[in-house]
């Protein structure tokens, strides 16, 4: 795995984006996540807010920013469902934090690493969701891991398309 020696935080580039990108891209992800399943006849086995959270957390390399973005995206997603607000929030908060923490230590320019990270973080997000729903809240939830694996694969494929597009929006010095 390509890692940076010495002080990685100092050596690695921190990406910067116009303010509008920070506002509009997450909003677009949330809107598309809510609208696309209707256009795709109920197919909702993907998680655009998660992909965007992972992207910005990896690019910014700031655990606090990753945590805040993950929390905001997760809470927003919860608010659109009938479930308790905070389940997705906790899952994506942890995902954002971990993605930013990993982004400090490894080279995330590599597409393969990005895809692998997306896949693993998607599964982690699902696992945290189940844990919070079943263990923390003690609620009944039927679960299919096959669906979650398919969702993780879909997220990786979406990241393969979205990440290069978002890379073009960053401010080049």
């Amino acid at each position, binding site marked *: 795995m390509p890692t940076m020696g010495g002080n990685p935080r100092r050596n690695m580039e921190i990406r910067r984006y116009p303010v509008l990108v920070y506002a509009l891209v997450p909003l677009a992800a949330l809107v598309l996540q809510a*609208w*696309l399943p*209707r256009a795709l*006849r*109920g197919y909702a086995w993907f998680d655009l807010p998660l992909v965007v959270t992972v992207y910005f957390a990896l690019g910014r390399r700031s655990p606090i920013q990753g945590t805040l973005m993950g929390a905001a995206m997760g809470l927003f997603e919860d608010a*659109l469902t009938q479930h*308790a*607000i905070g389940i997705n929030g906790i899952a994506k908060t942890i995902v954002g934090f971990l993605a930013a923490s990993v982004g400090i230590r490894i080279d995330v320019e590599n597409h393969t690493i990005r895809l692998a990270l997306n896949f693993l973080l998607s599964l982690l997000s699902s696992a945290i969701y189940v844990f919070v729903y079943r263990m*923390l809240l003690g609620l009944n939830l*039927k679960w299919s891991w096959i669906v979650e694996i398919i969702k993780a694969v879909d997220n990786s494929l979406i990241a393969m398309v979205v990440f290069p597009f978002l890379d073009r929006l960053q401010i080049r010095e």
Partner: protein
Amino acid sequence: MESFFIRYRNLLVLLAILLAQIVGLAVQVRHTDSGRNTLDPQDGPGVRLIRMWANDAVSPPERLFHSSRLGTVWLWQNYIDLRHTEQQNQDLQKTIDRLRLEQAALLEDAKQGQRLQALVGFQQKYIYQTVAAQAIGSSGSDQSRLFYIDKGADYKLERDMAVITPDGIVGKVREVFPHSAQVLEINDQTSGAGVILATTRIRGTLRGNAIGQPQIVGILADQRIQPGEVVLTAGGDMIFPRGLPVGVVEKVVRDPDRDAFIDVIVKPAAHLDRLDEVLVITSTDARFSPQQQQDLATSEALKGSEAAAILEKKKASEIMAERLPGLTDPNAPAPVPAQPGQPQPTPVTPPAPKLLPAVHPDRFSPGIAPQPPTDKPDQDQSAPDKPTSEAPKKPAQKTAPRTPTHPQRNP
């Protein structure tokens, strides 16, 4: 101390945010008397406010996307793709006429049912008023089968109103916002609808499973339930009126948690994954709505015209029968009306015209048919009131022998 906060600020922020969310979750969950945890069915003011903000942020772009898609589809369907439209129109008109006749026939049953229900003190609720709404967005989660419609409190929608399509039930209104509303579909895990199997009359509760299939749960294993059986709403949940189509039984599987129980997977009648327009039942009543009454009146009128058409056809056939040769004698005297005190005259059978014998006689050949089943020569005269036009026909229909029993009458 300061260096501790600086050094671990990332972790501290993470823990603080997680803690805040856990506390928020704890507020939203209730512990029931049965020892189980459930989500509060009605959101608190704070939670509702967050949901409203999220909806306000997402709804306008969704409406824009939805309107653009509808506009494109409308242009295509109304100005470009018009092949076979005329034929489809005619077919649909025929279907409407047929359904109106069927409705008129069922109307009598419905009226009788209402009278009987009034007698036993039970009131059947009918769909009295509906509001048509467009589905504009979804929750975006496969764990949450709900969608948003473009009508809300501005159209007097309320929680727990039933949402249907002409094909079958869809779900119920869960939350109402000023200009939109959340609809919880019947295939969500947290939904619930009282249903009944049409043939076996087994009742159960319908809810979704992990992959979004509606299933009837809590049914004891029963061999009578077969795939293809129709599922209807039972009407006991105070949300869906009784008798609405839900779907058909797709398969029966064993309940993974309880051995003696089964889960009946249902194929929904409504296309839950392709919903564009739905109807929200805003009121039910024990009487028909003005629109329904108008439809029924149209059906009744149509039924009357249909009956008139049948009568006209019958008259025409009688006229045709009178004009057929050999069936009536145009020179025969008109029947004299019976005078009181005088004996009834014996009716005279008109003489049959002489026809050439058939080469290959069958039961329709003249001269063969008038053969009574028994050897009673006066049988035909025992029914003097019958019209003369039917006289030669009736014995032919009744006694037409496949093999001749009286060889002396064969040509």
